[in-house]
């Protein structure tokens, strides 16, 4: 104990030394004079905290040992398979009914969360299943968003016509970028995608005549329901709006609910696609390639094509989400596609658990909904975000809900001796 005590004193003194320049000196402004003034209180507080933490290190370690034990009782990820379709249907129905009962604001936030769910699911295929680190995922998101904005502005195409085009555009961009890079080792991919994300953003910023530069593009039309617009008055002569067609009073919340439902359908579509893909030969190949590329090559699997398919699928998902994002916002500019967006999506995948779809969905909802709900803590957002990531890496590196792979099994044969 005395040894612990003296160590704690030493560490506290060190902490004091380090915090003096940061916390101990305050700038005082008096008229035009600026002076530095000592302020010992925060330094003493920091020293006290460090001292106590150091002193209590042993009991804290024991507590963290308890945390390790909790890891052995994981959250129930394995539902009895018989209940699964039933539960899934229940969740979908609940998610579809919910917006009619909730406030307009929360439905709007939920729509944003669904966009991040789509992005997270798409990046999860690239990072989680195929093991390719993509740090410029936002680039494909931007391609989808600007694709829709420009197509609708110049060619007057509707959202539903643009959606597949945006997916194709994003996938093509992904393949063009991936083809030369995916032959290289993983680290290079991370660097190149990081650069690519920035290049796309800079292009959007500087191609003024095409993208409107930093001013962005406005007046992007919202999706329609079979040609019915959600607006007070039809934007084109002779058009019909949703409320006129059904003889309802105009209600601005209808648009919000409709956008939410569109996002929900799009998310379910992506979820279905991914769940099929990972059980198909191509999905198995993604995983095999992540585990051992040389073994794959020795068995005749073309690594470039397989990686490209994962990368292209991830990109097309981002393009899909991007087109919807542009439609929902009605206005886009390059500020929506900065590196921090890529980082958030990657954090969603890491927090949720790489390869775990339920985990990624929950993490996406948590990371988008919480900052909106806890607006008063907005200043600390990045701090908390970083802290959560660090703590996760220490205690739960496999993510909130670690992936359980869909194992393909040989039907049990009665004659097989066990």
């Amino acid at each position, binding site marked *: 104990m005395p040894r612990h005590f003296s160590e704690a004193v030493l560490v506290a003194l060190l902490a004091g030394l380090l915090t003096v320049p940061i916390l101990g000196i305050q700038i005082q402004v008096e008229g035009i004079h600026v002076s530095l003034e000592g302020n010992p209180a925060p330094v003493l507080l920091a020293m006290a905290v460090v001292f106590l933490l150091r002193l209590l290190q042993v009991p804290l370690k024991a507590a963290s040992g308890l945390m390790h034990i909790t890891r052995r009782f994981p959250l129930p990820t394995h539902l009895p398979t018989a209940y699964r379709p039933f539960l899934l249907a229940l969740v979908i129905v609940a998610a579809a009914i919910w917006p009619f009962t909730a406030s307009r604001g929360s439905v709007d936030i939920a729509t944003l969360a669904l966009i991040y769910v789509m992005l997270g699911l798409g990046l999860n295929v690239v990072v989680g299943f195929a093991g390719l680190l993509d740090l410029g995922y936002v680039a494909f998101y931007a391609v989808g968003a600007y694709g829709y904005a420009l197509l609708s502005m110049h060619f007057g195409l509707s959202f539903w016509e643009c959606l597949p085009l945006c997916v194709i555009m994003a996938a093509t961009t992904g393949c063009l970028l991936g083809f030369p890079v995916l032959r290289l080792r993983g680290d290079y991919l991370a660097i190149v995608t990081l650069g690519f994300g920035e290049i796309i953003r800079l292009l959007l910023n500087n191609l003024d005549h095409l993208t409107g530069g930093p001013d962005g593009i406005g007046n992007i039309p919202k999706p329609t329901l079979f040609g019915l617009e959600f607006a007070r008055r039809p934007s084109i002569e002779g058009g019909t709006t949703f409320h006129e067609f059904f003889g309802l009073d105009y209600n601005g919340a209808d648009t919000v609910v409709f956008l939410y439902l569109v996002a929900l359908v799009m998310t379910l579509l992506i979820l279905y*696609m991914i769940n*099929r*893909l990972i059980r*198909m*030969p*191509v999905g*198995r*190949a993604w*995983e*095999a390639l992540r*585990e*051992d590329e*040389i*073994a*794959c*090559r*020795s*068995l*005749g*699997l*073309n*690594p470039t094509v397989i990686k490209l398919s994962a990368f292209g699928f991830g990109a097309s998902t981002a393009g899909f989400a991007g087109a919807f994002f542009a439609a929902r916002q009605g206005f886009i500019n390059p500020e929506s596609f900065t590196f921090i967006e890529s980082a958030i999506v990657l954090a969603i995948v890491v927090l949720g658990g790489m390869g775990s779809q339920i985990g990624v969905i929950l993490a996406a909802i948590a990371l988008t909904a919480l900052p909106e709900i806890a607006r008063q803590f907005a200043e600390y957002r990045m701090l908390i975000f970083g802290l959560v990531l660090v703590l996760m890496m220490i205690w739960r590196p496999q993510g909130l809900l670690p992936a359980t*792979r869909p*194992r*393909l*099994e*040989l*039907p*049990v*044969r009665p004659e*097989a*001796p*066990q």
Partner: protein
Amino acid sequence: MSEPSPLALPTTAVADRPLLQVRDLSMRFGGLLAVDNIHFDVHGNQIFAVIGPNGAGKTTVFNCIGGFYRPTSGTVLLDGHSIHGLPSHRIARLGLVRTFQNVRLFKNMTVVENLLISQHAQLETGLLHGLFKTPKYRRAEAEALERAAFWLEKVNLLPVANREAGNLAYGQQRRLEIARCMITQPKLLMLDEPAAGLNPQETRDLDRLINELRAENDVAVLLIEHDMSLVMGISDEILVMEYGRPIANGAPEQIRNDPQVIKAYLGEE
């Protein structure tokens, strides 16, 4: 992608042509000549062994043939067609597959899944078929499982079919690796030290398995092995390497009595 099909050639010409022809193969890593002018033929349905002291360059020869390294010089012909410089996955699809000195399984996947991965080339039924689970897709998957079950039975791994490959015993992993190769219906199976780490009983089983594969599946086997009793018993022809150079080539009897081989293994008097 159309590869020239060897089946299109007149069968009479194939009969006496070696399956694999390695000519003047050399591989240089900087100042080290790891493989120096290796020259040998493997005929269809033959068991051919490459032996030599550690560091003789045997695995490098494998890597050159399989396309994992690009040889510095020389040619490699499979069925009369040059496979020199082709990427390894193309060579594998032409019917030349291998196992590895340190077993390379997909450890987190089940045994059955390992066998499905290697059928990837045959299983490509198209994206839409898979997305909508069409009957064609279901049939292809069922057939693949059927083939996997057949090979698991063959290498005696059926009872552990649904276990994770990484949890198998070492000998079982070795057998799974061979099954994973055989399911691609290769013309030439290259085994890199298949008996390493096996106990005597497992080695005898391996001996029987290799002979069975040759007899029933019309496959030629090229193997690297240190277990002399296995090599001498099983091989039709043996190539001995030392310091990257070939020092002897012939039937087991010849090799056993070759003074240079004895010198290489036992040292000079």
